[in-house]
């Protein structure tokens, strides 16, 4: 069982938090047409992005997509070749890294190996020129926050990976930055610890009220952590939105395929009477409910997530829409889920995921079984690119 941590009632705050929908809200961070080249490689390509006060924003993309470069430009470690980066309405171009009110948690943690845990956390406070007593108080407060009170005198090499991650976090938030930058914050942790830490991070963010910007290639991490996700590809932001939006309503095949698994059927719109469309594809006719479907004659791609499909050894009644007949080609049993790879035509494989709701199934589906896959009219999304 998950233990319930003591925390303020954040559910109400989180469920109604959407400053990006309010045109009156001024963003805290604004990337305005930012471009960065390394030699003839373009790392960040004309990116414009607003991040709001108290938001948890995740930049998600494959490695080399420019997400880390974008974040490093906010920290001041890289200089944009074009465009502006604003923080609280002020252009940061002439502010060196050590004067920017942002702090970063490095992917490698970058803990100072010659300083103790307390020394690491105190480093930024010393640079600020705080009094000794104030530094000690703040260090103790941070140690308590990350539950490392007993480790104040330890050296970084005497800590476990999870403890190091906490020290890096404590060090980065000790100066109360206006934006906390997290570079692949959980990448070095094992799976179990990563899941725990994800929830701790979101709670911590609510508690501190600091704006978080995280960079990750792990979509689960981005979805759990973030209020909004910016999906990046080849230096560009291809979609921005809350996790449910980028997952359920991707704006392109690229985004749909990057976030989770998806089955894509290429077809032509036969008729469209908003919101119902009829599509014709090589795998058969589909009936789809999607307000944004283009008019008849257009080439489109119908994208359906594996978990929104059903699989059955019995044929559905005649006249049921969106049915695909096939044979089971492979089965992946994950415990909570089973993924079936179904061959619906020569070299046409689709993926169907079913929750294993019962412990014992009398006639489980097996390899080469003849099956029928079906999905509802509103299960898929029509993509035009």
């Amino acid at each position, binding site marked *: 069982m998950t233990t319930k941590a003591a925390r303020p009632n954040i559910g109400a705050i989180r469920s109604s938090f959407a400053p990006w929908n309010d045109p009156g809200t001024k963003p805290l961070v604004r990337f305005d047409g930012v471009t960065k080249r390394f030699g003839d490689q373009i790392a960040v390509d004309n990116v414009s992005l607003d991040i709001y006060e108290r938001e948890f924003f995740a930049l998600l993309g494959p490695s080399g997509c420019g997400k880390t470069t974008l974040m490093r430009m906010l920290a001041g470690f890289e200089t944009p070749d074009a465009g502006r980066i604003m923080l609280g309405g002020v252009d940061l171009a002439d502010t060196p890294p050590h004067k920017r009110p942002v*702090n970063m948690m490095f992917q490698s943690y970058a803990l*100072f190996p010659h300083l103790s845990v307390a020394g690491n956390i105190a480093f930024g406070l010393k*640079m600020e020129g705080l009094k000794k007593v104030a530094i000690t108080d703040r260090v103790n407060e941070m140690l308590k926050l990350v539950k490392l009170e007993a480790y104040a005198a330890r050296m970084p090499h005497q800590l476990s990976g999870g403890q190091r991650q906490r020290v890096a976090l404590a060090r980065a938030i000790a100066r109360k930055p206006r934006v906390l930058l997290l570079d692949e914050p959980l990448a070095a942790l094992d799976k179990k610890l990563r899941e725990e830490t994800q929830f701790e991070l979101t709670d911590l963010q609510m508690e501190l009220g600091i704006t978080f910007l995280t960079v990750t290639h792990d979509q689960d991490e981005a979805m759990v952590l973030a209020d909004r996700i910016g999906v990046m590809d080849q230096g560009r932001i291809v979609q921005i939105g809350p996790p449910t939006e980028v997952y359920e309503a991707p704006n392109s095949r690229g985004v749909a395929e990057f976030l989770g698994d998806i089955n894509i059927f290429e077809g032509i719109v036969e008729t469209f009477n908003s919101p119902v469309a009829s599509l014709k594809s090589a795998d058969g006719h589909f009936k789809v409910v999607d307000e944004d479907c283009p008019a008849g004659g257009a080439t489109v791609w119908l994208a359906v997530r594996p978990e929104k499909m059903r699989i059955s050894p019995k044929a559905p009644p005649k006249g049921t829409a969106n049915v695909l007949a096939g044979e089971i080609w492979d089965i992946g049993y994950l415990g909570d889920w089973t993924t079936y790879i179904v061959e619906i035509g020569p070299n046409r494989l689709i993926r169907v995921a079913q929750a294993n709701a019962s412990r014992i199934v009398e006639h489980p589906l097996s390899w080469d079984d003849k099956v029928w896959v079906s999905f509802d009219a509103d299960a898929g999304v029509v993509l035009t690119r």
Partner: protein
Amino acid sequence: MAAIAPYLWLGMLFAFPFLLVFKLSLSDVALSMPPYAPKFDPGNIGRFVRALDLDTYGRLVSDPIYIKAWLSSLKIAAISTALLVLIGYPIAYGMARCSSGSRQLLVLAVTLPFFTSFLIRVYAWVAILKPAGILNAGLHALGLPPVAVMNTDAAVYIGMVYAYLPFMALPLYAVLEKQDESLIEAAADLGATPFRAFWTVTFPMSLPGVAAGALLCFIPIVGEFVIPDLLGGSSTLMIGKTIWTEFFNNRDWPAAAAAATALLITLVVPLMLYQRQQARVLR
């Protein structure tokens, strides 16, 4: 077999020669060829061992020339090492901050002097520093008065710093080059100016390199003979020169051997301290 090899080499190339020197230091001066007694006699080992004594060490302690030479050597070595850190650190730091292509070139440049003979390089400094040498010719051309550097302690320091700079710069470069750049970024991120980031992160983390470089320079400088002999004056007193004088001028082989043994023992102490510190770092 592989485990024995290092001991075999150490025994052959270090322990055995050292034992010869040590035996010599326990002998007495004699008018013979070679000029000491007793001589090793496999037929009567008992008499040979009984004839060995510590008299020579007594002479070392009672004659102030040895103590003075020893202290002067330590002083010259300490000052030279300090100068080497001051000059070698910026060189190593600059090398470590270069692009990887020019780094290799710079490492080559630092090691290049080793391609010529040490002796020739010291003689080159004689040519530079002597009264009518290159230095004074240059000063004269600029209309400046000549300086008398040759045969002074200053010339010895110049020679020492010149000769030992690679031994300081290379270990320093090795630690600085390995330093994780994200640590400097982290320091800047946490509000440290480049200057403070250097003194709070880069420098303390490079101390093992400073220690290694200092030992590699200090120990041979204490026993250095060629540089004080060629560049130093008659007032430059160093233990290496004293040993040479005892051996070749005074033909007092036991005294030279005893001074060499005493020198070795005094140098083993800082080495052991360094080893202890290294072990602590590794732990």
